C-alpha cells in the first residue's frame, strides 16, 4: 500500500518536473523569437534609413533616387500586415538600382561614398541573416507547440502562435558578392 503510494508520488513529481521543464523550454523559445524579431526590425529599419539617406544625397541620378526614396519610405511607414510586401519591394528597388557594379562604383566615387556603400552593403547582408535566425526560432517554437502535451495542457498560455516573416531579401549582387548565402 505505502509502496504504491510512494510510486504514485514519485510519478507525479516526475510528471510535474517534466511539465515545468517543457514550459521553461517554451518560455525560452518565445523569448528567443522576441529577441530575433527585435533584431530583424532593427536591421530592416537600418536598411531603409541607409537607402533613404543615399536617395536624398544627390549621388544617384534623379530617377534612381525617386525609386529608392519611394520604396524606403513605404517600407518604413508600412502597417504590420503590409510590411512583408513593402520590404520586398524595397529589396526589388535596391536590386534594380544596384544591379550594375558601375552604379556602386559611382556611389563610391562621391565624397563619403565609400562609407555609404559599405553601410548599405552591410545592411542588405544583415537583413537575410536576421530573417533566417528569426524564422529558425519560429520553426523551433512551432515544433514544440504542436506537441500533444503542450496543446492539451495549454502550456503556451496566451502567447500568440508564432508567424514566420516571409519576404524577398535577395541582396543586389553588385553590393554583396558572396557565395551561397
Amino acid at each position, binding site marked *: 500500500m505505502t509502496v504504491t503510494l510512494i510510486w504514485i508520488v514519485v510519478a507525479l513529481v516526475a510528471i510535474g518536473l517534466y511539465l515545468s521543464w517543457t514550459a521553461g523550454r517554451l518560455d525560452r*523559445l518565445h523569448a*528567443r523569437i522576441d*529577441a530575433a524579431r527585435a533584431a530583424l526590425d532593427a536591421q530592416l529599419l537600418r536598411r531603409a534609413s541607409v537607402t533613404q539617406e543615399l536617395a536624398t544625397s544627390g549621388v544617384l541620378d534623379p530617377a534612381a533616387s525617386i525609386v529608392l526614396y519611394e520604396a524606403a519610405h513605404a517600407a518604413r511607414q508600412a502597417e504590420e500586415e503590409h510590411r512583408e510586401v513593402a520590404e520586398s519591394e524595397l529589396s526589388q528597388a535596391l536590386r534594380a538600382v544596384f544591379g550594375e557594379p558601375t552604379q556602386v562604383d559611382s556611389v563610391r566615387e562621391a565624397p563619403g561614398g565609400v562609407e555609404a556603400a559599405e553601410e548599405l552593403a552591410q545592411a542588405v547582408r544583415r537583413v537575410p*541573416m536576421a530573417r533566417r535566425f528569426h524564422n529558425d*526560432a519560429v520553426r*523551433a517554437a512551432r515544433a514544440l507547440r504542436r506537441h500533444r502535451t503542450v496543446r492539451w495542457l495549454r502550456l503556451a498560455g496566451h502567447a500568440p502562435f508564432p508567424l514566420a516573416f516571409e519576404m524577398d531579401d535577395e541582396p543586389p549582387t553588385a553590393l554583396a558578392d558572396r*557565395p*551561397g548565402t
Partner: protein
Amino acid sequence: MKIGIVCPYSWDVPGGVQFHIRDLAEHLIRLGHEVSVLAPADDETPLPPYVVSAGRAVPVPYNGSVARLNFGFLSAARVRRWLHDGTFDVIHIHEPASPSLGLLSCWAAQGPIVATFHTSNPRSRAMIAAYPILQPALEKISARIAVSEYARRTLVEHLGGDAVVIPNGVDVDFFAKAEPKKEWQGQTLGFIGRIDEPRKGLPVLMKALPKILAERPDTRLLVAGRGDEEEAVASLPAEMRSRVEFLGMVSDEDKARLLRSVDVYVAPNTGGESFGIILVEALSAGAAVLASDLDAFAQVLDQGAAGDLFANEDADALASAAVRLLADPARRAGLGERGSAHVRRFDWATVGADILAVYETVTHGAAAVAADERTGFRARFGLARD
C-alpha cells in the same frame, strides 16, 4: 565585445576545426575583441593565452572511429565555471551536435548562442536516437552557421530550421606571398593530405598516374602528408615510383611554398568533405586546381570556373584532365588568375566581418550569456551553490 568560443576537439591534435577556431580567435583579438576559447587539452600542453582547458578528452569509439570527447561531471563543471567567469556577450559553439564540449555548453548556457556546423554527416542511427535529447539543447541556439551550402542542406534535412552560410576563412595573403621553391617547380602535381586515408583519394591519383606519365613522362608528383609511403606506391610499376616524391608532414610555411610551386594541385577526395579548405589555400597560392566533383568542392571552385573538376573516383577522367592542364600553360594561368580573384571572399577580412555581423545580430537587445540555472536539478529547489 566579449566572445566565448567552444572547441569540441582536443587542442593538441591538429585538425580543420581547431585551425579554424585558432584563426578566428586570433583574427577577432586583432580587431580588439576579448576572446576566450574553451577546448579540451591535456593539462601539461602549453596553450595560447586565450585558450582555457576543459580537461583531457577521453578516446571513445563513436561514429565508426575513435573520437576524443569530453563529457561527465568534471567537464560540465568546468563549462559552467567558464561561462560564469567569462560574462560573455555571445558564445560561439562549434559542432554543437557532437557529444562533447559543444553539446555540454549548449545545455549549460543561456543567452545569445551562435553555432557553427562543420561536418555534413549523413543522419546516423545515434543521431536519430538522440534527437529528443539534442533538440532542447539545439533550440537554444539563436543563430546557426553552416560552412557550405552542402553542410546547410544536411543540417536542414536532419535537424530542421535554417542556417546562414559563412565559409571557413583562409589567410589568403599568407599563401599568395609565399616564395616558390625551385626544386618543386616544373611539371609538378601536388597532393596534400593523409596518405593512408582512402577518403583523401591518393589511391585514385595513383591509379591515374601511369596514364599521366605515359603522356607526359616529365611529370613529378609531390605528396605531403602522414602515412605509409611504401604502401602508397605499391600499386605503381617499379620504374614509375621515382616520379613520386614524399615530403612527409610539412610546416605551414612549406605547405604555402609547395602550393605556390606546383603546376597543378590535385584534390581527388572521394567523399565526406563539407568544405575543402585545402582548395581555397591552393587557389590563394595561385595554383591551378583539379578536384573531384564533390558538392562541396564544386561550390568552392565556383562550379568549375575557378578550377577543373573530374568525375569522382574516375581515375581515367582524372588522368586526361591532368594531362590537358599540364599541356596548356595558358589555361593554367587563366585558372590561377580567376582563382585568385575568387578566393578573396574566403579571406579572413570578409569571413570575419560576416561572423561579427552574426554576433551583432544576435546580441542586439539581448542579455549577456549566463549559466542556465534551469537545467540544474538542484537549482530547481534553490540548492545550487555559486
